[in-house]
């Protein structure tokens, strides 16, 4: 029947649009989480920290957790487990990484901040998590993190927990090598 065709067309369009919407949720979710900080993701780019004013009236406890993922053979731990900081103060924290295997392994650390809303106020000036880290077999290294807590942090937060999970991305790194060679890095 002829009068069915426009309606069928519209319904198929809705179906295709919703299939697209399912995939659109992926970037939408990232944007939403970036704006609100609700899933504890910190910014993947460096903050400057130039114009931060130190707020000495209160102290925030920062707890550091670090764990290698199940398939990651590195030893990975923070130098200290917690420190007290004033908002606005810039601190450096070192993480120890050790590769006990015989081969070079590339690692990528993924941060997560708890409580999630505090993630927006936890700023990193420099972080080993901004890039992939290579470590030859049997070697160890110190990986620095330079950070400060934004003085605008709401008063209800007095402890921030920063967790790093370290993943083995050697395979993905190796796959990208020819590509990077071509670009001329």
């Amino acid at each position: 029947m002829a009068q069915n065709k426009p309606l069928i067309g519209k319904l198929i369009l809705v179906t295709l649009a919703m299939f697209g919407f399912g995939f659109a949720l992926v970037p939408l979710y990232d944007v939403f989480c970036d704006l609100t900080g609700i899933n504890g993701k910190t910014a993947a780019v460096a903050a400057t920290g130039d114009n931060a004013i130190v707020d000495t009236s209160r102290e925030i406890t920062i707890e550091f957790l670090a764990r290698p993922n199940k398939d990651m053979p590195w030893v990975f731990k923070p130098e200290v487990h917690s420190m007290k900081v004033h908002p606005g103060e810039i601190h450096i924290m070192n993480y120890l990484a050790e590769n006990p295997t015989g081969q070079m392994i590339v690692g990528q650390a993924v941060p997560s901040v708890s409580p999630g809303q505090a993630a927006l106020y936890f700023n990193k000036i420099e972080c080993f998590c901004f890039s992939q880290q290579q470590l030859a077999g049997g070697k160890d290294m110190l990986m620095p993190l330079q950070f400060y807590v934004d003085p605008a942090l709401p008063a209800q937060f007095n402890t921030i927990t920063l967790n790093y999970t370290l993943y083995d991305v050697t395979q993905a790194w190796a796959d990208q090598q020819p590509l990077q060679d071509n670009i001329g890095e």
Partner: protein
Amino acid sequence: MSVVITEPNDQEHHEHDHHDHKPSGITRWLYTTNHKDIGTMYLVFALIMFFIGGTMAMVIRLELFQPGMQFVEPHFFNQMTTVHGLIMVFGAVMPAFTGLANWMIPMMIGAPDMALPRMNNWSFWILPFAFLILLLSLFMPGGGPSFGWTFYAPLSTTYSGDSTALFVFSVHIMGISSIMGAINVIVTIWNMRAPGMTWMKMPLFVWTWFITAFLLIMVMPVLAGVVTMVLTDKYFGTSFFDAAGGGDPVLFQHIFWFFGHPEVYIMILPAFGIVSAIIPTFARKKLFGYASMVYATASIAILSFLVWAHHMFTTGMPVFATLFFMYATMLIAVPTGVKVFNWVATMWRGAMTFEVPMMFALAFIVLFTIGGFSGLMLAITPADFQYHDTYFVVAHFHYVLVTGAIFSIVAAVYYWLPKWTGNMYDETLGQWHFWCSLISVNLLFFPMHFVGLAGMPRRIPDYALQFADFNAFISIGGFLFGLSQLIFVWVLIKCARGGVKATDQVWEGAEGLEWEVPSPAPYHTFETPPVIK
């Protein structure tokens, strides 16, 4: 080769005589574009799937009869819980509703057939292949899917077996089938209503299915998207749900439940339509609050898109988000309450009789409401932290799906069976089926509330000793419920073979176009549109 079979008394048929022959044998069912044939196939398919999924439930209850590992390996137990859920949701409940829609919607709105009969044939016939793929994957080395019907990442990506690709493929086919069925329902209702059948004169079963069909075309594509992401994450190196590559496993739950919550209303809205048809018939009164029923159904459908994260309270959402989803979820109780109120008000001072369809509809109202209340308990965020992933959740969704959706489907089958077969079913056997089901289903699911509140986790093949007595009790209820359904099959076969001839109206208080055609309903009905008063 097309075979033309001429019937001897062709003159008695309508002027469109070329429509009236049906091929005989298997080709009738393979090539059919008749809404009644396709409806029957959907219903028979759903019944077979109900028993296959039910057999898996029996394996689960057998293993949980006693603490400790008795009969099956934990990995096989996980496959049973997974495939039981998938089969019951996509293979039993949804095709049963689609079958009822195929049979009844054209007859209820005075249309000669569904709007897109060839697509109708296709949307049915791809289903058996989807489930064949899913069921055969159980026999692969490494077994079938074992990550739960919700296939949370990374269980379904990093930790799943080789059968995952088959699982994804079969879900794709099920989704395509549902979407085609839904498009067909919408086009039929939109374009093929008999003259005078205005929107607000449509029977509620038609209304609820119309709204359900919109839910289907909006969320089944999202399900197709999320299984595709699982497929590419597992086999093609993407990182939608893998934190190492910049993805997020919590994102999986958001996308899945964006599909999953409207999905649970897909499985209950047609049930509301069925109960709204049965209660007035046996109370011999008009349905109380027809318009409010339509608006309540539409509000439930809209709200169902705004509550998905109540499945995820324990993922560490911020407080304002949990509050939003908690209140939005509780809001759904308002239109649902309107419906329950209207059903009760319909019965108020009605001249009620208690034939089997009415008994199942009454049990639906009481038991579905219990399931609704446990849903409200789960909606309370702080309480949900204790209930999450326990048998309390299992009790909740089995009350709404078994004593809700399945009871309504069984009620619908008893209600319309005389119209389909032309014979009355055996009332005594039907009452036996009802009472056995009612008692056993409560023995089966009610104690799950208690073990759940006491902390027994779901989807685990073993449990702490203090739950032993309750679980033995639950398992016995389960076996009895499974056996009770054999009475149903007996009733169906007996009724299909013969019995007291049904009148056209079948039930004294029945109103609607489907009761104006002869019983059994002729192969073609309403080739000339009826006049709607």
